[in-house]
């Protein structure tokens, strides 16, 4: 099934414990669409934050030896106010989208959410 931004966000919000979702162009920090609540003032601020976190993760050569091409699948931040999951929509050399979901710590299940985001991301990019 091919869906639009709204459908994609609905699918993310269906994850158990999901408090908020955001589809972010992480290269620019632009929110392409958002749903639910947001841990910061608004969805645009959240998107900019996601972009900053993504930038740090992608430009830090953590756990990678020099000269090796690295690929980051997701970033997980466990915080007092919940779990923050960023999943990179991959597959294309020019991928610039990331799915962000904010999970309730009590209700959310990280592994389930990760699987869910992965399958949503796969549907985002046409074959």
């Amino acid at each position, binding site marked *: 099934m091919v869906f639009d*931004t709204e459908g*994609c966000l609905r699918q993310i919000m269906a994850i158990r414990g999901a408090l908020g979702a955001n*589809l972010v162009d992480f*290269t620019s920090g632009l929110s*392409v669409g958002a749903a639910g609540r947001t841990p910061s003032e608004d969805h645009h601020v959240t998107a*900019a934050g996601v972009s900053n976190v993504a930038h740090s993760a992608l430009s830090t050569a953590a756990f990678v030896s020099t000269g090796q091409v690295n690929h980051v699948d997701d970033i997980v931040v466990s915080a007092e106010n919940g779990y923050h999951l960023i999943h990179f929509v991959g597959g*294309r*050399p*020019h991928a610039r989208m990331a799915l962000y979901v904010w999970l309730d710590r009590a209700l959310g299940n990280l592994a389930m959410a990760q699987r869910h985001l992965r399958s949503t991301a796969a549907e*985002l990019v046409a074959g």
Partner: protein
Amino acid sequence: MSQPSRHLRDTLETWCAMGVTGAIRVLAPPGGTLYVADGWITYAECPSACGVDRLLTASGRLPVASWREAVAAGRASHRVGERLVQGGLLTPVELEATVLSALHGAALFLLCLDSAIRLDMGETPAIGPVVRVDLRDACAEVDRRRRALDDAWPDSRMDTHAVVPVRSLSGHHVGLNALQWEIVAHADRRRTPIDLARSLGRDTFATLLEVRRMARAGLVGPGRPGGRGAAGRWIGAGDHSSADATAPDDGIGTGEDADEQALEPPAHPAPAGAEPAPLAVVAGVDAGPVPLSADDRPLARRTASPVRWSDGAGPSPDVCPVSVLLRIRDGLAAL
């Protein structure tokens, strides 16, 4: 309807509040067009920013032929975007993200101009009704982006001057992300970040940001100013004549310059007579086509003044050979 020159945002606010539909042409350089429908921004384009055509074709996401086909099929009905999705070339999410990238990329240059604008009622962009953005959100995004650029590295010359990677690292090792790699790999000491974004089909703001981040890290520095004539004006430079501010009629490119741009480095459209003397370039007081800030303007005037001297037979101070200076010094010493 048209308005005299004043801050573009004020006029836009009035028109959007009225719920107008049409193409708002921005007349001051770099020039561009904002499309509004019922007071919402649906598309924007500016010669300095990557349009949907370049984002899709130059990035390699779509073959140029597929793009042209969709344009040919959907242009007349203003449904190019829909054609791309129906043809299975893009998902709706990709289309929305690409249109937003183009829209905000152009807004970054357009929404901080003091410019006369003209409204052509009823016009709609050829890409079709893909997104709707509130003017206030667009302005907030522009402000966020300008802050982000300044936070990354305050030297705005990096936006409008050629990207020149340093020849050697000051340390042992450096890590680059994918976009930074592309920038460095395609920097030919002539292309500005705006040129690079266009030839790579990358988001213009993202490219500007990565260049500034690399400048902070000491990996790249500013070379010659130039590239697309539009480049520097949004930073608040003075008024300059520009011939390349003309925009396509309906906000869509044909992707025709897609190959050309990748192969040929862009020309420097310096206005006639503004070409600085060679010595001035070396000394870094280039009076090139794109003055950057109020600070640069006195320099531009200074390089113009030697013309008075060279009217006579005497050599211009700018190209005064060292031997002459030495003779003068010797002569003065002898007195």
